[in-house]
């Protein structure tokens, strides 16, 4: 836990709210997607390349992976509906006939369902998280500066990451 806090602190200094929000959203997408998958790999690459909060990305992916397990039947149904949706079939057929595209697993119901749902949720969740972080920095950040006893708890060190640099 201690190691994670240190790692998070080191990686997340001078971070803007969008960095944390985007990390949260990318973590959600990764969490919902089946792990061994092209899209998962792509999200991980994005997380490393874009300057986002990695600790939030890891935390978010863990939380959403657990939720994803419960939502598996929903992903399957949604994915199947998308993949068999008549107007989209020419597109899927076209992709199907491009070399190596099948390896992405796009035609898998759970992959397509989780990808679709997570992408659909990505935009609103990004903005909501962004807004919440700003509000937090405005209204709650002073608590950690003024009550020394809270500084003693390591858990609040983690929460400090949300404060950013003043």
């Amino acid at each position, binding site marked *: 836990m201690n190691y994670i806090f240190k790692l998070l602190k080191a990686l997340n200094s001078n971070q803007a709210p969008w960095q944390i929000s985007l990390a949260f959203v990318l973590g959600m997408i990764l969490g919902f997607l089946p792990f061994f998958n092209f899209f998962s790999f792509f999200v991980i690459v994005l997380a490393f390349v874009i300057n986002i909060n990695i600790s939030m990305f890891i935390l978010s992916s863990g939380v959403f992976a657990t939720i994803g397990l419960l939502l598996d039947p929903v992903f399957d149904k949604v994915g199947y509906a998308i993949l068999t949706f008549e107007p989209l079939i020419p597109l899927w057929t076209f992709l199907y006939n491009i070399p190596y595209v099948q390896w992405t697993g796009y035609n898998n*119901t759970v992959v397509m369902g989780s990808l679709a749902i997570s992408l659909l949720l990505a935009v609103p969740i990004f903005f909501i998280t962004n807004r919440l972080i700003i509000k937090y920095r405005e209204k709650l950040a002073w608590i950690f500066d003024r009550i020394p006893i809270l500084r003693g708890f390591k858990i609040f060190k983690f929460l400090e990451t949300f404060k950013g640099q003043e």
Partner: protein
Amino acid sequence: MKIFRWQGIIILLVLIALVSVFFIFFFDTLVKKTLEKTLSTALRRPVEIQSFKSNILSLKFTIQNIQVADKKNPYKNLVQIKKVAFDLSSEKLAFKKYHIENLSVEDIALNTQRKTPAFTKEEQEEREKKDSKKIPNIFEKLKFPSVEEILKKEKLKTVEVGKHYEKELSYSIQEWKTYYKDIQKEREHIEKLKQQIKTLENQVKHIKSLDDIKKIKENVKSLKAQIDDRLKKIKNLKQKLKEDTQKIQNAYKDINQAYKYDLNYLKNKYSLDLEGGINLAGLLFGDTIKNYLKKGISIYKTISPYLKRGEEKQKELQEKRYRLEGRYVKYVEYNPSPDFVIKEGKLSLFMFDSKITGRLKNFSDNQKIYKKPFEIFLNSKETKLFKDFRFYSKFDRTTKQEKDNFNLEIDNLKTKEIVLKNFIKFTENSVNLRADVSVLEEKILNGEVKFIFEKTKPIILRTDSSAEIFKQLFEDINRFFVLVKLGGTLESPSFKIKSDLDDMLSARFKNLVNQKIAKFNTELQAKLDQNRQKYEKQIQQYKKEFEKYSKLISQYESEYKQLLEEIKRKFDTKELQKKIKKSILKKFKF
């Protein structure tokens, strides 16, 4: 603020490098483990692989020593393969399709033994004992019970009738013994009557008056009445004797009929009905063939699902969904091809202690698209074990009616010995095998398998009392065939076994049985004769007794009749009247 994080890229590259190194070093081990797990699940048997080696760039793979264990017998391998090597087509792999251009399967060995035995010796002996017990049922017929046992066990009519007459006639004899005492008294009666007649004669000589005549007349009448009474009694005795003599005749007749009935009944009951012959070939080879058939069907059922029709497979994929795995939706392919193909394959296997080589062609999981049936050819040149071996199999799912064919031809297959049911072994065999079997729609089984045994030497393994019979039956039989006609479905296969061995054995068996029957019948007849003669002898005694009585009665009857005649003659009323007339006239003569 920087949008991109270059150190992140470095970390990512390091991570990718680490994963690549991991795959380079551990990929083969991982695949080996996965293959073992997948094959074990698919074949429902434990599968072990010694090693898996891959060359990702050239897409060449080699698997060493695959062992598929027999699930019923953990000490036995159902299949063991020394080496499997194949290369994948990169062009098809881009479309997630596994097309093997060249496959090489080396040294397939079936039913290889493991070091430790599957059963304990006791269990093995118990099983052999059970097998051995199954055989004699048919030959139990040859074991006749002894005639003494039969006569003790069976309720004989001869005895029943004999005893009935014995009782009845013995009662009659007892009655006649009482009569005999009375009959003997007849002598006294006769003597007495004779005395009376003499007295009467004297009286007649000295007749003086009419009163004398009257008296004589009365005496004569009394005498006549006495004789008539005796004759009447004798007549009754004669009638009784006649009835009892008739009983003796009836006894002879009935005992004879009972004897004939017993003889026929016992002959029929204890003799053989040989009209149906014997189906020994079915009994001997049935279980072995059943086991081979079961194994064959089991192998077929293992292979068959991999050759499923395209539409069926697609439907199955659409319906089957595993949790956290999802379903793969398939779309129209611009250049359709099956998911899995083996274009050409070479294989070698160990069978009958010989190395057989072969090749396979066009294995695919969707023959509708591939439009080529899957074919397997196996053959071998002359070996120590056989002269020629040819196997051809064709799994054709390209047409509407699926048809799978299997042809096998083996010439001069030399087997040291074939032990059947621990009852007989055929040694130094040379077997010609011809099999032509087909399966329609993966369900209907049809075909025949013919084994021609030549130069065989049958050896009876039994050591009990019937061993000699079996030896006689199988003596000099060194050539026969066994034809197995297959039918039914894969779920409930049926087979009929026909063999000229049955005809040969039936003839010998009939001969042996006829000899036995003849001996049995003679013994039975002799014993029943003894029984009959015992009763007849007894009746003969009674008959003699009755004849004695008859003779005596007849004698007395004749004597009584003579006396009656004598009375009639001597004491005729008219004569007496004449005599009186004369005497009176003499007195009054002047």
